[in-house]
């Protein structure tokens, strides 16, 4: 119990003195996870919507696979991406291993199925609501996708935030493909793993509380910006 309290104190101390290392790894955590979020959303949102409105032969199978991919163990993804990006691997010449880019790639792979799956579920419900009207109005497929994404944007935002949460808290994959290199690829989660390994629990917990606070702040900011809980909106 006293260690948890020590961790809280350490968190306050680090933030208060604006510890340079803390700022560096926090910014890097945000850089990696937010970039991964943007790329993953750009892929997952249209795909999930398209999957909700298009009928094709292997649709049920595709949906089942998509939902299963949500359970991809991140550390396995990390290992596979490492093997692909390794100098001895197919994409080695690009020299991406042990850079933030490699971490972004791994996180995109991990969170895209999650965002796509939630998107699909939400869009399916909205589509069944709008279906008759949009067909009656003679809309094109593209117009339908636009209407669904726009009117369903709040659920999509939840999907995106779920993806962000998964990304920023992830440690297994980015440890392998990033290498946790000081001043290069170290982020909050890998630093926590490192300090835990050194037995410095207070610092590890402190970083942990910073991470939790960061995630809370991002969520609150997004909700505030989109005025989700305001009276009269949904």
């Amino acid at each position, binding site marked *: 119990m006293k260690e948890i309290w020590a961790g809280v104190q350490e968190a306050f101390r680090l933030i208060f003195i604006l510890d340079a290392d803390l700022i560096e790894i926090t910014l890097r955590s945000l850089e990696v996870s937010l970039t991964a979020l943007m790329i993953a959303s750009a892929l997952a949102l249209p795909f999930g919507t398209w999957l909700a409105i298009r009928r094709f032969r292997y649709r049920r199978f595709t949906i089942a696979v998509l939902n299963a991919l949500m359970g991809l163990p991140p550390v396995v993804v990390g290992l596979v991406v490492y093997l692909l990006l390794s100098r001895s691997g197919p994409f080695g010449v690009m020299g991406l291993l042990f850079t933030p880019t490699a971490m972004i790639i791994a996180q995109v792979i991990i969170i895209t199925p999650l965002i796509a799956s939630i998107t699909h579920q939400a869009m399916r419900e909205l589509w069944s609501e709008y279906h*008759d*009207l949009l067909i*009656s*109005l003679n809309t094109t497929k593209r*117009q339908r996708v636009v209407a669904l994404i726009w009117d369903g944007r709040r659920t999509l935002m939840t999907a995106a935030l779920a993806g962000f949460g998964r990304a920023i808290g992830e440690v297994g994959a980015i440890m392998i493909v990033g290498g946790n290199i000081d001043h290069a690829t170290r982020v909050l989660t890998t630093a926590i793993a490192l300090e835990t390994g050194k037995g410095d629990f207070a610092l590890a917990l402190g970083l942990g509380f910073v991470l939790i606070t960061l995630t809370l702040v991002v969520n609150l900011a997004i909700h505030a910006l989109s005025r989700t809980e305001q009276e009269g*909106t*949904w």
Partner: protein
Amino acid sequence: MVSPAISVCLDSVVVKRRGKTVLGPVDLCLQADGFTIVLGPNGAGKTTLLKVLHGVERVSRGSVQWSIPNAQVREAQAYVFQSPIMLRRSVRQNLAYPLQLIGIDKAEIASRVVDWAQKTGLQDALDFPAPRLSGGEKQKLALGRALIRMPKVLFLDEPCANLDGRSTREIEELLYDATKAGTRIIMTTHDLGQARRLADSVLFLMNGALHEHGAASNFFAAPSTSEAQAFLNGDIIE
């Protein structure tokens, strides 16, 4: 502005669902103007007929032929559902949506929206979220949204089924104005009083078959089939 007359003919149309014949065979031609009411007991196939005419129901046999090219057909029609479907947006945005789809310019959209909001009595609720309107208001909005593109043909599927007397009257007034402005209206209803008030012509359906088709006055005074007579008497028909 004189718009070309538009008519439609159904030729031996049959609609089957899960092997069961829901509608047909129907041979029918409807002309350019007027107010047609489709009558019949529940399950008679009224909604199916409407959807076939609107082109959103696939026919198992037969054909639907309009007098204008197919590409223009859907553009010239509009449909109001029994339960109004509201976009999760404001009243203003709901009204504007059909016009945005066909690329009308912003100024024109704005003026038409205000115009129809007034006609439907929703001018004070323009920025109110549509899903939170009352049942009657929603249906009026749906009607305004349907008419805002000035369709040549308007289909309505029991629009007043869930509404109170006042809303029903307001909707009927709007329909009356529309018909005066030249819109061809085809509507299903349960309400015989409403049918008498509005219809120029009547289609009577039962068990998927078209039993009568004629001028309203004739139909109500002296229907030619016994089933229709029974229906008008208020008997339960099977």
